[in-house]
């Protein structure tokens, strides 16, 4: 009996040890995979995009192995808290609401968002003017916050992936959709699917909803946030950031 217990304890101890060393090595990063050009899938199913390259570069800087974990957008923060991964590199804006649940690194890029509509279409972007107008946004984004706050009487439709939003915009089920400008250009407007569509109106402006740039989310008060901020500064300084940036965008998307 005693021997058996000792053996069991030893086995359990060994397993914990193995688990903890493995944990210390690999950094598990939550990514999305349906948000071109930040995060998308190649034909063979492998992940690519600005966010993915950024995650890999930051892991390299921290000298930790990167394990990319795919997660649909609306479960991104819940899965972080459920320990499915340790950091989110998925174009997540730093907002007050999210800071209640998670901690953020410093921003790693900052680009504006705009409406997209059919070319030549005309909308009155006011509370009154958007009554019943069909606006599509990705569920659980800063844009959902924005559109629900500013146009509560619009017919707001929430989607699981950005690709579904584009599909419904082309199918004519939506009048307007809201998106990050760079994501919209590469993922839609500059593709054959986006022919006949254009940006509508100005860049959105509402820090409370839209946040202060895009950062890396980690569990609340995880010191990883500070390490990642330092790593972002380091890859800015050593030129890695610029290499990745230029691979996808004609301009520096870091912002001011």
């Amino acid at each position: 009996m005693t021997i058996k217990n000792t053996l069991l304890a030893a086995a359990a101890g060994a397993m914990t040890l193995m688990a903890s060393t493995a944990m210390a090595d690999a950094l598990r990063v939550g990514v999305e995979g349906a948000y071109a050009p930040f995060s998308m899938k190649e034909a063979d199913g492998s992940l690519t995009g600005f966010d993915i390259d950024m995650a890999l570069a930051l892991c390299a800087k921290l000298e930790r192995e990167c394990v990319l974990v795919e997660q649909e957008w609306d479960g991104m923060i819940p899965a972080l808290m459920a320990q499915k991964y340790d950091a989110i590199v998925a174009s997540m804006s730093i907002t007050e609401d999210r800071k209640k649940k998670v901690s953020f690194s410093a921003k790693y890029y900052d680009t504006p968002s705009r409406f997209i509509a059919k070319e030549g279409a005309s909308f009155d972007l006011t509370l009154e003017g958007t009554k019943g107008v069909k606006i599509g946004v990705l569920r659980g984004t800063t844009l959902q916050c924005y559109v629900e706050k500013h146009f509560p009487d619009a017919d707001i439709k929430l989607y699981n992936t950005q690709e579904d939003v584009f599909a419904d915009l082309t199918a004519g089920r939506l009048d307007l959709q809201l998106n990050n400008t760079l994501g919209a250009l590469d993922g839609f407007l500059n593709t054959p699917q986006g022919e006949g569509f254009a940006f509508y109106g100005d860049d959105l402006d509402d820090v409370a909803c839209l946040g202060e740039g895009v950062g890396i989310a980690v569990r609340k008060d995880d010191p990883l946030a500070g390490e990642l901020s330092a790593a972002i500064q380091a890859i800015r300084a050593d030129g890695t950031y610029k290499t990745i940036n230029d691979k996808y965008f004609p301009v520096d998307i870091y912002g001011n």
Partner: protein
Amino acid sequence: METERTFFAYLRHISETTSPLDFVLIYDNLDRFVGGALMTLQLTFLALFLGGLLAVPMAIARAYGRPGWSQAIWCYTYAFRGTPLLVQTYLFYFGLGQFEAVRNSFLWGPVLSDPWWCVLIAFTLNTAAYTTEFLKGAIETTPAGEIEASKACGMSPFTRMRLVVLPSAFRRALPAYSNEVIFTLHGSVIASTVTLQDLLGVGRWLNGRYYLAYEGFITAMVFYMGIVLLISLLFRMAEKRYLRHLRPRGADSATPAQATA
């Protein structure tokens, strides 16, 4: 009044910080969940009703119709029973929308561009396929004696179907149908994947809006459990009433009908 407000503020504070479940937030959004439940019930029962209307003639044709008819309907039920409801819904919603011809047709504007209609069509065809098959089974197992007796009484095939075969087939299909109703309710969550704000849609909205992990799901779950409980109770009552003749004789000797039998 003052203490009441501070008590509520205290409750809200507890709910937002220490409580594992942000119950005040759920309470604040309860009206949305009720709206979602109504959408779920509307889709489920409308699909069941329309599917049932389609299933009765198809089941009769499957059981008694000419071989060609029966096989054609079998192909339809096989296709809809053999594929996931999610795939069927996507086909109606995203699939049809891909075609220019569909988008230009007269059906696009009022029907196919609307997620509600796409979902209703998919659900209706799906439940009709399942209902057809088990109703066909029930029709085929009508005791030969009952049919002979009705023939001996000089009933026309139509009257025989209306007065003898269908009523007894419906009774025997009742337990299977209660499962179908509950499965259709469970399947109705698919509506939320094509932007409809059904119960799960509202749950996901809440999670998305406030970046929560499970509050929306747990609330939706409680609502679903309540609805399923209600459906089960209704079916148990219906079975008690319509399948009374199948129960062991001693079981309800108290009822006068049995006592005199």
